[in-house]
């Protein structure tokens, strides 16, 4: 197996943290944002896990799922939160990062994140443990995705005590710490600029649903 990662890309924090938690041996290659590792995808997507079968896994969440499953950890309970992360959180997150890091519009960035972060805070407030599930998968995926936002005081996320407490637990996990250090170099939002400039401009408006 071979894992391709690039600097300043929060999805790579997910993959590297999962790799470390899994304890598996895997080549890690650092590539730049423009590198097209997956031949069938039109635009460069990183991280990518090249499987022994020759298949490319290009979804960071699927990569994390596989690495943890291979290490014998259960992942079923995390799936619902992973779907929420991919469909609800990511579009808002990408838009907020664009606004904050590239345009310096912090109040607009905060407005975009209000809904999803509020939801997550609510969800966590009902939990009796420090983590999202009994498994580690959802914590790694959501923690890494939100790392640039929650570790940077420039983001005005408001008063979300359960979310902050949870994030402090996740960022202290050694696997998460070292992954974030490798990918973001302790440079915070600055580190993300190169990655964000290569992402398609996020749009939250969707095409009308097809007639059903």
């Amino acid at each position, binding site marked *: 197996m071979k894992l391709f990662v690039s600097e300043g890309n929060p999805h790579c924090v997910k993959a590297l943290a999962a790799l470390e938690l899994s304890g598996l041996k895997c080549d890690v290659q650092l590539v730049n944002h423009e590198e097209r590792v997956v*031949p*069938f*995808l*039109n635009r460069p997507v990183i991280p990518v896990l090249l*499987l022994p*079968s020759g*298949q490319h*896994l*290009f*979804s960071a*969440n*699927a*990569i994390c*799922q*596989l690495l943890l*499953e*291979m290490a014998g950890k259960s992942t079923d309970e995390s*799936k*619902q939160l992973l*779907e*929420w992360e*991919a*469909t*609800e959180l*990511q*579009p808002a997150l990408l838009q907020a990062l664009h606004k904050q890091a590239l345009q310096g519009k912090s109040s607009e960035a905060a407005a975009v994140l209000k809904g999803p972060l509020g939801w997550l805070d609510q969800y966590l407030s009902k939990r009796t443990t420090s983590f999202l599930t009994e498994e580690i998968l959802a914590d790694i995926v959501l923690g890494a995705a939100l790392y640039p936002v929650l570790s940077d005081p420039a983001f005005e996320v408001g008063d979300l005590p359960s979310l902050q407490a949870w994030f402090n637990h996740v960022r202290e996990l050694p696997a998460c710490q070292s992954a974030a250090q490798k990918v973001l170099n302790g440079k915070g939002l600055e580190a993300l600029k190169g990655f964000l400039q290569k992402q398609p401009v996020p*749009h939250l408006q*969707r*095409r009308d*649903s*097809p*007639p*059903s």
Partner: protein
Amino acid sequence: MALRELSSLEKCLGLKKPNKYSTQGERKVPVLQNNNGPAVVGLVTIASSLVRDAKKTELLGNTAEQRAVVQQWLEYRVTRLDSCTKDEVKVILKELNHYLEDKVYLAGNSFTLADVLMYYGIHYIIMELAVQEKEKYLNVTRWFDHIQHYPGVRHHLPPVVVLRNRVYPSGQH
């Protein structure tokens, strides 16, 4: 749309008792209320739980590797395909066409939930393709035709005519 698709999936899986779904939020995310536990939210999560109810977990993949590939294409369906603009439709068709070049199904050699949900999600796009475009995305059309004829899959959707012989000589698109 997601609700019709879930009810077709129930039939496809041979589940006898239909579930009642509701939706939440602007995106009308499907929700399945459970009597004996918390609600199940999201198309992929609900579909996977139906597969487990029907005891057909092979549709989620037989190995850890295959399960990850299935998960990846399910994610592609609800992120890339479901939110694509008109211009992006061509990109998606191109990507899938390239990917399916040497594959029978999305997860390789076996039919999985990824094929079913991708088929439901892409149906309206394939319906609108002209014959010439269908030939341009030949691997997608071949896969699509295969899935629409797979026993029990089609249900609420009209069949799409796919010509098995080329009308236009290749290279003249």
